[in-house]
């Protein structure tokens, strides 16, 4: 197994976010997600410290970090599921709790918490993605059904739309959850480890869907994943988290430091392991 070519992993640790990034964050009105000097703890030690992060429209940002680096906590704070300890968070230009048009945020959870007793088809799951569009108490309109159909087609599950989810492979199930997020035609898509353990075909479909969403709809994407090889060529920025942001730059800048996202698949996971 290859070791990372990064000669000094420690050189990244402790590095502050660039001054220009902080200045830009203060005045960028078009940011979909904006976190400034964000800190958080669960009462027994710091989990996030002075985290500064931004995702803009049309931007594909990958958030990586070793296990226990605070990625999941950061996502919860950014999405409003946890209040920040200190610092500022804005989601679609407002405090997360004050966002009224939350349907503009598409979310793909790390592990689907369903697969329960009652069968549910791909179409039924994906249709839920349209609930907030016009009000959850209203029925689906023709345009809603069209959007659901497009979302299912875009992840390559068209022929399986009527199949129960529990009859599909893990990769296909994950694609259904991605389609649910797409169905809402989100301005911002947040994905938590969406391709962990899924097959190559699903990974390829996943990449193409994200490219379509960003290029055709101008959406911003924040992807948390250890496996970036499938999307390495379309990522704009990589943010490395280990309690605080230890790297925030383009894949080329990361490569200049000897860590590759795509060409040498094993580079990033090994580097993150060393960080941990």
């Amino acid at each position, binding site marked *: 197994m290859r070791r990372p070519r990064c000669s000094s992993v420690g050189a990244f640790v402790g590095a502050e976010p660039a001054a220009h990034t902080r200045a830009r964050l203060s005045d960028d009105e078009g940011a979909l997600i904006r976190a400034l000097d964000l800190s958080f703890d669960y009462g027994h030690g710091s989990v996030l410290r002075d985290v500064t992060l931004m995702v803009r429209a049309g931007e594909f940002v990958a958030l990586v970090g070793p296990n226990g680096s605070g990625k999941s906590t950061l996502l919860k704070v950014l999405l409003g599921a946890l209040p920040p300890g200190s610092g500022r968070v804005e989601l679609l230009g407002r405090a997360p709790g004050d966002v009224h048009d939350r349907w503009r945020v598409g*979310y793909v959870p790390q592990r689907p918490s*369903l697969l329960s*007793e*009652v069968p*549910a088809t791909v179409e039924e799951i994906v*249709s*839920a*993605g349209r609930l907030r569009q016009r009000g*959850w108490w209203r029925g689906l309109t023709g345009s809603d059904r069209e959007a659901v159909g497009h979302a299912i087609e875009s992840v390559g599950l068209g022929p399986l739309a009527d199949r*129960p989810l529990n009859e599909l492979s893990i990769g296909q199930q994950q694609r259904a959850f991605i389609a649910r997020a797409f169905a809402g035609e989100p301005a911002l898509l947040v994905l938590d480890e969406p391709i962990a353990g899924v097959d190559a075909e699903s990974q390829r479909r996943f990449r193409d869907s994200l490219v379509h969403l960003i290029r055709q709809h101008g959406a911003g994407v924040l992807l948390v994943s250890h496996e970036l090889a499938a999307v390495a060529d379309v990522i704009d920025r990589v943010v490395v988290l280990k309690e605080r942001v230890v790297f925030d730059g383009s894949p080329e800048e990361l490569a200049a430091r000897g860590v590759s996202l795509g060409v040498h698949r094993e580079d990033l996971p090994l580097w993150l392991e060393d960080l941990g």
Partner: protein
Amino acid sequence: MIATLPIPYPFESAESQRALVACLAVGVFAPMIGAFLVQKRLSLVGDGIAHVAFAGVGAGLLLEIWPVWSALAFAVMGAIGVEMLRLKRKAAGDLALALFFYVGIAMGAVFASRAGDLELETLPYLFGDPYAVTWTGVAMVGALGVIVVVAMRLAGRALFAVVTDEDWSRVAGLPVGALSMALAALTAGVIVAGMRVVGILLIAAMMVLPVASAQLVSRSFRGTLRLAVAIGAVSSLVGLTIARPLDLAPGGSIVFVAAALFAAIALAKRTAPRALQQEAH
């Protein structure tokens, strides 16, 4: 006074016709709510709330008010209490349920024993007595049915999203707390409406057994819901029809038919899986 319809034995009398209407209503509406509870992996929540309703029956007997009202108040409060404990993660779903379950049955026994003869007063509520249901009782079941149907029409899709994936629903901005509370209140309403029909100890079975049967052959949530309603109605009709000639307790008879249908469908699925799956499409 509503005229008795010319229906043959065993539904020739006004009592038996009221019993038939009440049983059919419970058979239809209980699985409608039950499908969401099963999907939420809270199949036993109905049992827990039914035991809290028993405390309400005891309180009603003690305070000399119609036990249905006090049972409804206790059941709604209990259902919302269980849901609040679960939503705030103060206790796991089953632990929250156990707390209410045991306290409810103990309170019911204490209140009823203070009110008089524990067995005589509480047996019709514990095991049901559809032949004793008055037109007021039938009207109450009917009103509840209207509420359930309207709620399903307005909130069915959102409830499906919440019970299927609560974390996602929260991020999507759905009112998870309010919808969960509404489902809890509807569950309490169905339990109290069905209490005099199949009994506190068996009403939860009518919420779960038809759904368990339907999900064996259906391939969608909508399909499961529709089939469960049909199985619930058939169970009520067959159970009540055989109860009188065979001198069986109607509540037990109905639930027994529902259980027998589950066993028959499970067996049929094992022996002819493909044929059944085609039919379910």
